[in-house]
């Protein structure tokens, strides 16, 4: 299953903040930041269990993360990935000449990949190093 015409937002969550202070390369950070939060009704359309890996695709890249249902909804049409290496695979690097990339508000689509592999922070960044 997949969903089109979504808007991707990114930002701080307290779990992600705690996880990064506890160790950015830990599994805890994967659990806190390698997730995509869906509006409850949007998630029903994906027809999968919470926690199933999903591929988030934007014009700037794609990344595999775990799906979850948002506690900060309803926000139909909006998905949220906590700030961090996973979100930054798919954000818009254009700063409109002001220095700050457009980390929020990208058009996105999502595909359910039941056997998808969510990489940990080091493996994810290693791909950029070896690119």
């Amino acid at each position, binding site marked *: 299953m997949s969903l089109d015409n979504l*808007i991707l*937002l*990114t*930002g*701080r*969550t*307290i779990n992600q*903040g*705690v996880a*990064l*202070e*506890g*160790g*950015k*390369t*830990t599994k805890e950070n994967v659990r806190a930041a390698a997730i995509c939060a869906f509006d409850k009704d949007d998630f029903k359309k994906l027809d999968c269990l919470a926690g199933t890996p999903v591929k988030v695709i934007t014009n*700037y*890249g794609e990344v595999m993360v775990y799906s979850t249902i*948002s*506690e*900060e*909804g*309803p*926000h139909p049409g*909006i998905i*949220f990935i906590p*700030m*961090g*290496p996973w979100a*930054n*695979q*798919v*954000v*818009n*690097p254009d*700063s*409109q*000449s*002001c*220095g*700050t*990339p*457009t*980390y*929020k*508000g990208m058009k996105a689509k999502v595909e359910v990949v039941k056997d998808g592999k969510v990489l940990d*922070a*080091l493996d*994810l*960044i*290693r791909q*950029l*190093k070896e*690119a």
Partner: protein
Amino acid sequence: MVEKKIHTVYDVVCPFCGTLCDDLEVDINIKENRVVEVRNGCQIGTKKFFSSNPSEHRYLKPRIKENGSYKEVSWEVAIDKAADILVKAKRPLLYGFSSTECEAQSKGVELAEILSAILDNTASVCHGPSMLAIQDVGAPLSTLGEYKNRADLVIFWGCNPVHAHPRHLGRYSDFVRGYFRRDGRNDRFIVVVDPRNTHTAQIADLYIKVNPNEDYELLNAIRAMVRGVELDGDEVSGVLMEDIKKLVDILKSCKFGVIFFGMGLTQTLAHHRNIDSAICLTRELNDYTKFLLTPMRGHYNVAGANQVFTWNTGYGYSIDFSRGYPRYNPGEFSSVDLLMRDEVDAALIVASDPASNFPAASVKNMFKHPLISIDPHETPTTAFADIVLPAAFAGIECEGTAYRMDKVPLRLRKVKEAPGEVLPDREILERLIHKVKEKKGE
């Protein structure tokens, strides 16, 4: 006499977010030099104190990459190699600085000048647009104590302090009792403007759901309505016209209002123009009542980085020393833009993790060139750096000064000894300056 095992340090300033809470109590096991208990801190701040304890993620010795693998070396060898990389580079970038103290930031400026380098801090990817807007139109700011004591209307626009600044609400803006706000939360009206019904929105009196990337339109519609202009149409940015009217009435009728704003305005389309409009709205509301605004700064000393860079160079971030004098041009000399154009040929990262926090395409380019990282523990940046210089935690293992989000400087405290061979950021940068000068024959 029984030997005292636990030493408690009081009134500790928390080195996590820009709220810079200054009432933490930290228990230290003196014998083991470990943090064993933190009181009064939020979840994230508390975790930071515990993460200073030795662990598999903490670097205790300098290390360099040789033939694809890492080896631990002495400080002399590591500093020599780092200085070598920086001196040979034609366009080195010095980036980070927001999670360290002001004296180290000042040394960073000195090193950048000697190297004719580019100097940037993390404001570049967070509140840089706020600085641009403040340079454009000024800003009616105040210290947080004023808001605590006086504000009866608090607006959180594009920020989610429940998650990002957990104690802000309890110390300054929401639940706290103030001199003129004796009943705390009951004496304040809280408004949240955000595309998501955030946890902050869920405890607000009024939640305005704005469409992503359309804050600029909403701000200008509010400005027009404040001036008495009747707008056509049923809605602006997904907000019904009657809700905007209701908000305008609330804005005009408060005794003392404040807008706290965050990345929801700076990291979306229109960037600094959003802040321009927010500032102009705040200024215009002062025709009716008292109104101020304040950016919710993220890193605990990013405000300090802007202060230190400004008093040394005249500019807060995105500074180029390549002509021997400082030039400022975000978009041209800002880190992500430089990396996207692949202009940088070496990078020194101080107390930051751009590999995690920059867009992927810019990280790819950063990794093409030599990378030096000064950091206390393992991050995706240090893991792939050519040289890692292990630092002490400023505000936990060494003293220093930090600026709160309202630009109030506070003295950070040392609560425990630094483990292993780690050094404060300030001393690492001093050693680099000394070695770079030596190599350049100065």
